[in-house]
């Protein structure tokens, strides 16, 4: 593969491509092509790069042409010669994946040389009419390859806009999820409708409710995922050697600059967004396609890679694109307007460029105006999210010891919390570390102070325990509330995690400890009493602490924040589920609308997740890992709601496509137990958190867990 490693920032230009300075498009696209129906030998007379490209993709030769239309032309500019070619829809035989392609005819083919314009050609394993190429005009030849639409997976298509002017050629513009739009494809003999009909047979094509000429492809495609993965751009950019000038007056279009891989600024995100917009205006001639190579060329099959989805939603104006792109007689890029980042520095804007930055909320491009989705939220994130692979190992004993000052204070509380959040905590460290996370031991306490605290807490615990233990049989008869509570606790401790060796077998002393701690807690917090779910919360704490007194006080610390989950009026649960609702509404309006339609907005299907913070959804050791991440409060106190949103988001397709109603959704969510990838969920949740920004904070409960 070639041309995949970027060593400097691509030049973003909105001018007519200066052919001589641009790499042939096939360099940028060679790794993108997944499919061609042409045999390499048939293409040997074409430009070497294209032939090489096809050679390279021999494995995809067996594709079926389900639609082909001749004499579809591209007009590079108003003064340029049109380039004719064939538009086709291909289906890969292996996995039925659909592709769209437009390949130009060889040079000595004139635009009217092809026949049977209106006929659908259904060929099996056929080849395109690519005949001999003669290299007469070098630039023209370059244009041809430059504008060629090498097979693009249909799944990468975002929308098709149809233009059927009464005067002039009918044409379509295809916009990809990446924000890249393909060059307008002009139908010399009509047939746009037929094309859409065929396309509709092979993909989900819906007419936009706002614009009858706009067809959304795969509209179910996950806007959230796109938004989230757009954050990943940063890594791509950095690895590709992207940088910004350190001084702050960052210029989007400056090459090189100081490498600053470790401390990306918020602007990195906005640069990524800007880059997307600039691509929109540059159509297929954009040589910056290099950066699409997620793995820098190692994974050629994933272009345009999933991680490159953009943060735009299509918001077409009623008028067509011609006014902007071609009919204005200038082959000039349309105005690009981008929301500025929230910093007070100069917007990344280059006077040499013809783009103009403005305080707008949309980006007008050749295909309409793009609204930038909550750009402020993206750029407000000043944090680079470690990828899953980069996540550290659990906090080790050595590291743990290093956190302490000579007098025994844990000075770097923030560092510790961050460490616990990303890596979790080694099992051998948990017993001590959890005491801090659960507020049992203060971070600034010395060894001596902790010993004092321990003593005092032991005395207090013993006194509390003695209260209920001293209730005589005759007193008990007149103490219904006590009897009830004891009966409930007795019933529940014998059915809490009994499959775990720690609590297994008859007459297990740890089960007795569960009982004692819960009984004591109902005397410590008599008004709250006991409620089902508490034994689930206590079980891992006792398992880690292996000590009755320590487990009790850690449990108290946890209940201090989770108490409202168990209030009789369920206010804590309802406020959290409402927050979750608002969070999903914010992050995934489509899913929200769906749930609204299905009358599921009470979010009862997430009840168990929230009540006992996923205790039943993961295997025991993972619950410990999740909980310490949540208790670290590294990002926020309600991070569990982001985890909920992330898991829902992960299954949004199943939910929406499956047309799940309340019942089926509830069963579906229940069945996810044991099937959720925790690290993925944590990672996604953090992405959502970063994405939601302040707007996310605003919908969270004001207190409680």
């Amino acid at each position, binding site marked *: 593969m070639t041309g995949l490693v970027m060593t400097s920032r691509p030049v973003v230009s909105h001018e007519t491509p200066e052919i001589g300075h641009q790499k042939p498009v096939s360099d940028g696209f060679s790794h993108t092509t997944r499919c061609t129906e042409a045999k390499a030998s048939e293409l040997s007379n074409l430009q070497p790069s294209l032939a090489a490209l096809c050679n390279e993709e021999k494995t995809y030769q067996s594709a079926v042409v389900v639609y082909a239309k001749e004499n579809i032309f591209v007009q590079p500019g108003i003064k340029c010669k049109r380039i004719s070619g064939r538009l086709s829809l291909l289906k890969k035989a292996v996995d039925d994946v659909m592709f769209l392609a437009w390949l130009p005819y060889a040079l000595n083919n004139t635009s009217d040389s092809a026949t049977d314009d209106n006929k659908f050609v259904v060929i099996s394993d056929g080849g395109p009419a690519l005949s001999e190429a003669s290299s007469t005009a070098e630039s023209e030849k370059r244009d041809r390859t430059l504008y060629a639409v090498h097979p693009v997976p249909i799944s990468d298509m975002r929308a098709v806009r149809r233009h059927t002017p009464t005067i002039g050629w009918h044409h379509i513009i295809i916009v990809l999820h990446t924000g890249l739009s393909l060059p307008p494809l002009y139908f010399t003999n009509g047939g746009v409708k037929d094309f859409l009909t065929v396309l509709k047979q092979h993909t989900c094509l819906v007419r936009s409710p706002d614009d009858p000429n706009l067809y959304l492809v795969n509209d179910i495609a996950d806007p959230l995922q796109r938004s989230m993965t757009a954050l990943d751009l940063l890594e791509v950019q950095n690895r590709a050697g992207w940088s910004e000038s350190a001084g702050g007056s960052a210029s989007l279009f400056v090459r090189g600059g100081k490498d600053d891989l470790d401390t990306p600024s918020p602007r990195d995100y906005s640069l990524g967004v800007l880059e997307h917009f600039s691509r929109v205006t540059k159509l297929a001639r954009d040589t910056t396609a290099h950066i699409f190579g997620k793995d820098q060329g190692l994974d050629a099959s994933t272009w345009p890679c999933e991680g490159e989805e953009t943060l735009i939603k299509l918001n077409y104006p009623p008028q067509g694109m011609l006014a902007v792109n071609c009919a204005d007689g200038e082959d000039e890029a349309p105005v690009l307007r981008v929301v500025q980042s929230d910093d007070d520095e100069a917007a990344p804007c280059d006077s040499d460029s013809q783009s103009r930055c403005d305080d707008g909320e949309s980006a007008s491009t050749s295909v309409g105006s793009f609204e930038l989705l909550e750009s402020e939220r993206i750029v407000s994130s000043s944090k680079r999210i470690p990828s899953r692979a980069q996540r550290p190992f659990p906090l080790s004993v050595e590291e743990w010891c290093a956190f302490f000052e000579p007098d025994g204070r844990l000075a770097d509380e923030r560092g510790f919390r961050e460490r616990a959040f990303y890596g979790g905590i080694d099992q051998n460290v948990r017993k001590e570390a959890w005491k801090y996370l659960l507020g049992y031991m203060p971070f600034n306490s010395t060894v001596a102070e902790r010993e004092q605290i321990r003593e005092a807490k032991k005395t207090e615990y013993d006194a509390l325990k003695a209260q209920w233990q001293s209730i005589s049989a005759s007193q008990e008869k007149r103490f219904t509330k006590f009897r009830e509570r004891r*009966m*409930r606790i007795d*019933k*529940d401790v*014998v*059915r*809490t*995690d*009994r*499959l775990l060796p720690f609590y297994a077998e008859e007459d297990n002393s740890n089960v007795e400890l569960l009982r004692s701690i819960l009984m004591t807690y109902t005397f410590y917090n008599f008004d709250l009493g006991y*409620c*089902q*779910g508490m*034994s*689930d919360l206590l079980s891992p704490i006792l398992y880690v602490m292996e000590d009755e007194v320590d487990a009790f006080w850690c449990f108290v610390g946890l209940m201090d924040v989770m108490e409202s989950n*168990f*209030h*009789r009026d*369920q206010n804590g649960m309802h406020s959290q589920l409402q927050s979750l609702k608002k969070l999903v509404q914010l992050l995934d309006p489509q899913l929200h609308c769906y749930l609204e339609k299905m009358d599921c907005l*009470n979010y*009862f299907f997430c*009840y*168990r997740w929230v*009540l*006992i913070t996923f205790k*039943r959804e993961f295997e025991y050791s993972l619950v410990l890992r999740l909980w310490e991440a949540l208790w670290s409060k590294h990002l926020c106190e309600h991070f569990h709601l982001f985890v909920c949103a992330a898991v829902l988001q992960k299954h949004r397709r199943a939910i929406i496509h499956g047309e799940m109603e*309340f*019942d089926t959704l*509830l*069963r579906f969510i*229940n*069945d996810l137990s044991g099937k959720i990838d925790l690290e993925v969920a944590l990672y996604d949740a953090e992405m959502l958190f970063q994405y939601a920004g302040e707007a996310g904070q605003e919908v969270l409960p004001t207190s409680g867990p």
Partner: protein
Amino acid sequence: MSYAYLFKYIIIGDVGVGKSCLLLQFTDKRFQPVHDLTIGVEFGARMITIDNKQIKLQIWDTAGQESFRSITRSYYRGAAGALLVYDITRRETFNTLASWLEDARQHANPNMTIMLIGNKSDLTHRRAVTTEEGAQFARENGLVFMETSAKTAHNVEEAFINTARKIYEKIELGVFDVSNESYGIKVGYGAGGANGGTTVRPGDAQASGKSGCCS
């Protein structure tokens, strides 16, 4: 597996009366006293045969704790049958039946078939509610009544299947508009004729799935 009808059941009753154990005994034919306590709701399913028709029972096993009542109420929607369970050894679980019934009447469809179940009939030495009291309550409230033991499996099959039979009779009588799923009945693909399924005596398990599997 195809079925003529799918009935949604809901099991309700106080904490610790044996709701989950009844479900497990019915779906898995085993008694597991250390089964984790139910948070929210758990699901079970089993196929039975009535009148030569395959009927799939999709069973919702709810949490009994009072504070979860508000969420439990949302589960009544679309249930065709309910098993209202109390523990014959604990009178307080019998005393709360009226409030459970009120919930059911208020939140379920009025044609829901309710089976009153006095569970733990094996613990005769600790009995606190007589069989006659249970039967009386059932008569007064128009419920079907049975005493069961999830531990010995006594009457467990009958409880679930008799309920299904009642629902089936209501369908035959045209009480339900089966096309309206709010009655908790779905007409399956195997509805066909009366001879659509293999002949299995009512009460025989045609298929049983693990508790929690309800597809």
